[in-house]
C-alpha cells in the first residue's frame, strides 16, 4: 500500500458515491437501533428501489443526539429527521429533492453549532464496517505519512507539541508517556488500547469503537511506530458486543489491505492488533489491573512504580492509552501539533467528547473544545433541563468524579478546573440532575457502585467503601446521626489517601463533593428526618403537628 494507492481507493469511493443524487445516512448506534433503526433502513432501501431514484442508503455510527433517535440525515441537503420509523420511509424517499417531510425534521442547529468535531468527525458519515469509507475521508493517510516521512522521535515531538492529554481521566500528557515508553529498553514492547469503559452514564468510547473503529487502529499503529512496539491489544469489555464485532471486522479489513501485519506499506515496520475481552470488572480500567487481566490473571491493581511504561504486559514496556486518546492521533499527525494546540484552554488542549445523560433535553454524545463553559454544554448544546424542573447539579467523571452545583456552571471545562471543584474530567460522562434528585441518595448510589466494583485487594477500598455505604444507607433511611456524618468524613479521608489504586482513591469524591455543596441535604436527612427531594424513604418520619 502506498499513498497513491490510498488516494486511488479514496477516489474510487468518491466516484461511486457521485453516482447517487442523495445519501440517506441512517444512525445505527445502540440508541437508534433499539428503536428500530434497522427496520427503518430496510424500509428505506425498499422505498428507494421502488422509487427508482439514485439514492445511497448508508448505515453509520452515532450521530450524537440519541434522545431524538432513530436519526436519518439526508445529504447533500444536511436535513436531519428525528424519531423516524419504517412507516416514514416512503415519505422520506418521496420528498427527496423537494421540501423535507413535515413534522419529522428536527432543528438541532443550536445543538451542533457550538460543537467542534475531531474525534467524532467521521461518526455519522461513514459505514463503520467499510474500510474504504474510512480511507475516503483521509483514513490511514496519517499512518502512511508517519511510516514514509517521519522518524519515531518526530512523531512523539508532534504529539508532545499538540498538548494532548490522556482522555481516560487522569489527563497525563500523552507525548510524555510515549516518550517514556520509547526510551524504555526492551526488544519487545506493547501498545494497549483501554476500551474498558465502565462509568455509569458514559458511552463515548463505545461510540468511537462502533462508529469509527479504524481510527482507533490507525492511532495505535502510529503509537506503535513511535514507541517501537510490534504488538497491540485492544481491551474491550464483553458488554460491548457490537464494538467487538466492528473492531474484529476492522482489524480483518486492515490486514487485508496491508495496513496491519508484516512490513506495513513495504517499510520495516510490522504491527498487529488483537482484541482481548474484559469480563465486566470496572477496576480493569485501571492500567495495572488491565494488564493483569490481559495476561489472564485476576484483575487486581499493583502498586506503581514500576509504571507500565517500564514494566507492563509480561514485564515488557507497555504503552496504555484510552480509546479517545488514540482517536485524536491521526488528525494531530495530519494537521500538525499546532493545529490541535490552538484549540482548547490554557492547559487542556483540543476537544473532549462528553456523554450527556440524565435530566436533560438532548441526551447523547457531544464533542466540544476544552475550556467551554459547563453552562453552554448543558443549556445550549444539551437543551437544558426539561420544562417544569430546575437544574441542581451535574456529575462529571462518573463514580470517581464529583457533582458540580448550579452556581459553578460558568467555569470552563478543563482537567485542572474540574479537579479544583472537587470533581474530575474522567472519561467524559456527564450526568445532569434536577430538583427531583436527592444528593445524599446520589452519593449512596455511587458509593454502592464503588463498593461492588472494588477488587477487594486493599483494605481501605474493600472495607471502607462498604462502611461508607452502611453509613449513607442509615442517613438515607432517617436513622443517621451527626456522629455518623463525622465518621463518614473520616472514612472519606482514609479511603482517599490510603487506597492502593485510582478506584479507591477517587471513590469518596461523590460523597465529598455533595458534602461540600449540598451539606444541608445531609443535615435535613439527619436532624429533620426529611428528604428535601422526596426520594428517600424515611423509616421514622417526624410527625408535623398541625
Amino acid at each position, binding site marked *: 500500500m502506498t499513498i497513491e494507492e490510498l488516494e486511488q481507493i479514496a477516489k474510487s469511493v468518491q466516484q461511486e458515491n457521485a453516482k447517487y443524487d442523495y445519501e440517506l445516512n441512517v444512525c445505527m448506534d445502540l440508541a437508534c437501533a433499539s428503536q428500530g433503526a434497522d427496520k427503518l433502513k430496510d424500509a428505506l432501501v425498499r422505498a428507494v428501489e421502488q422509487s427508482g431514484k439514485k439514492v445511497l442508503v448508508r448505515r453509520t455510527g452515532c450521530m450524537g443526539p440519541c434522545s431524538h433517535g432513530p436519526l436519518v440525515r439526508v445529504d447533500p441537503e444536511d436535513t436531519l429527521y428525528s424519531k423516524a420509523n419504517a412507516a416514514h420511509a416512503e415519505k422520506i424517499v418521496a420528498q427527496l429533492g423537494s421540501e423535507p417531510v413535515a413534522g419529522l425534521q428536527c432543528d438541532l442547529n443550536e445543538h451542533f453549532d457550538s460543537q467542534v468535531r475531531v474525534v467524532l468527525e467521521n461518526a455519522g458519515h461513514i459505514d463503520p464496517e467499510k474500510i474504504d469509507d474510512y480511507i475516503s475521508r483521509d483514513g490511514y493517510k496519517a499512518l502512511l505519512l508517519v511510516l514514509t516521512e517521519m522518524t519515531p522521535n518526530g512523531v512523539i515531538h508532534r504529539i508532545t507539541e499538540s498538548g494532548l492529554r490522556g482522555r481516560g481521566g487522569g489527563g497525563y500528557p500523552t507525548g510524555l508517556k510515549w516518550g517514556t515508553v520509547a526510551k524504555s529498553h526492551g526488544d519487545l514492547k506493547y501498545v494497549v488500547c483501554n476500551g474498558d469503559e465502565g462509568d455509569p452514564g458514559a458511552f463515548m468510547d463505545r461510540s468511537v469503537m462502533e462508529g469509527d473503529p479504524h481510527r482507533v487502529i490507525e492511532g495505535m499503529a502510529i503509537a506503535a511506530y513511535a514507541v517501537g512496539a510490534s504488538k497491540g491489544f485492544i481491551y474491550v469489555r464483553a458488554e460491548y458486543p457490537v464494538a467487538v464485532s466492528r473492531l474484529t471486522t476492522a482489524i480483518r479489513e486492515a490486514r487485508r489491505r496491508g495496513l496491519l501485519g508484516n512490513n506495513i506499506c513495504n517499510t520495516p515496520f510490522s504491527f498487529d492488533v488483537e482484541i482481548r475481552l474484559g469480563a465486566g470488572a470496572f477496576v480493569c480500567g485501571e492500567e495495572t489491573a488491565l494488564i493483569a487481566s490481559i495476561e489472564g490473571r485476576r484483575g487486581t491493581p499493583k502498586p506503581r512504580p514500576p509504571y507500565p511504561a517500564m514494566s507492563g504486559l509480561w514485564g515488557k514496556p507497555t504503552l496504555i492509552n484510552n480509546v479517545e486518546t488514540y482517536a485524536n492521533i491521526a488528525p494531530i499527525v495530519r494537521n500538525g501539533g499546532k493545529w490541535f494546540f490552538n484549540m482548547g484552554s490554557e492547559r487542556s488542549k483540543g476537544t473532549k467528547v462528553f456523554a450527556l445523560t440524565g435530566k436533560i433535553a438532548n441526551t447523547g454524545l457531544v464533542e466540544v473544545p476544552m475550556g467551554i463553559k459547563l453552562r453552554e454544554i448543558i443549556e445550549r448544546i444539551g437543551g437544558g433541563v426539561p420544562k417544569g424542573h430546575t437544574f441542581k447539579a451535574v456529575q462529571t467523571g462518573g463514580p470517581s468524579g464529583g457533582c458540580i452545583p448550579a452556581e459553578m456552571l460558568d467555569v470552563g471545562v478543563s482537567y485542572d478546573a474540574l479537579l479544583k471543584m472537587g470533581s474530575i474530567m474522567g472519561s467524559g460522562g456527564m450526568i445532569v440532575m434536577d430538583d427531583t434528585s436527592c444528593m445524599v441518595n446520589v452519593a449512596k448510589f455511587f458509593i454502592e457502585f464503588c463498593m461492588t466494583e472494588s477488587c477487594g485487594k486493599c483494605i*481501605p477500598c474493600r*472495607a471502607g467503601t462498604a462502611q461508607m455505604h452502611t453509613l449513607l444507607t442509615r442517613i438515607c433511611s432517617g436513622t443517621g446521626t451527626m456522629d455518623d456524618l463525622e465518621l463518614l468524613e473520616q472514612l472519606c479521608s*482514609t479511603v482517599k*489517601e*490510603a487506597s*492502593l489504586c485510582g478506584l479507591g482513591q477517587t471513590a469518596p469524591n461523590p460523597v465529598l463533593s455533595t458534602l461540600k455543596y449540598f451539606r444541608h441535604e445531609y443535615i435535613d436527612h439527619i436532624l429533620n428526618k426529611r428528604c428535601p427531594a422526596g426520594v428517600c424513604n424515611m423509616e421514622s418520619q417526624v410527625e408535623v403537628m398541625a
Partner: protein
Amino acid sequence: MSGESDVKTLVIDEQEVSARSGQTILEVARENEIDIPTLCHLDGLSDVGACRLCLVEIKGSNKLLPACVTTVQEGMEISTGTERLRAHRRTILEMLFAERNHICSVCVSNGHCELQTLAQEQGLTHVRLPYRNPELRVDASHERFTIDHNRCILCTRCVRVCAEVEGAHIWDVMGRGIDSIIISDLNQPWGESACTRCGKCVQVCPTGALFDKSKIGSDHPKYPDFLPYLNLMREAK
C-alpha cells in the same frame, strides 16, 4: 560508568541512614530499628502493598506511599509516624475489626495475633464503625488444619506462601470487594484439595484464620521466621 554510588543516604524520622540502591523503605527502616507497622508484608514473600498500614510520608510529595514496595532514593526525607499516618492506621485497623467476626477471647490466636498486637500498639481502644458481622464458613475438612473465614483479613500471605514457596498454589482469592474470600483449589473443601499438608500457610497467617487442629485453646503461637532462612538456603543451592 559515571561513578554513581550504589549506596543511598536518606533520612527516616530525622535519623540519617544509609541503604543499598534497590532496598525498600521498610527494609532500611527495620535495619535501623525504626518500626513501621505491617500486616500483608512478610519477610520471604513477595510484596503486594495491600494492607496500607506501612504508608509513610515523603517530603515533597502529598501522596502517601507504602514502605514495603517503595524503593529508597538519594536524599529522601521520610516520616513514619505523623499524626496523619497514625489516624489512617487506626481507621484501617478499625475497618479490619469491623469487617468480619474478630472475637479475641474465643480465638486460638489470642495473645499471639498480629492484628491484636497492632491494635494495642496503635492505641486502638474501641471500634467506632458498625460491625458487619457476616455469616462466614469454617472449613474443618482438612485432617490437620482448619480455616475460619471469620478471622481472615485477606492479607493473602497464605496464597503467596503456597504459590511462591511451597509451589502448590492451593489458595487463591474468589469474589470481589467486600465479598472476597480465600478458597482452596477451585472452591473445594480444603480437605479434598491438592494440599500438600506442609502447614506453611498456617505458620504465616497473622490471625487465627488458619490454625492447627492439635492446638488447644489459645496456645497457638506461629513461627513464620523460617521463610527468609528457607529462601536463603534455596538460593545458596
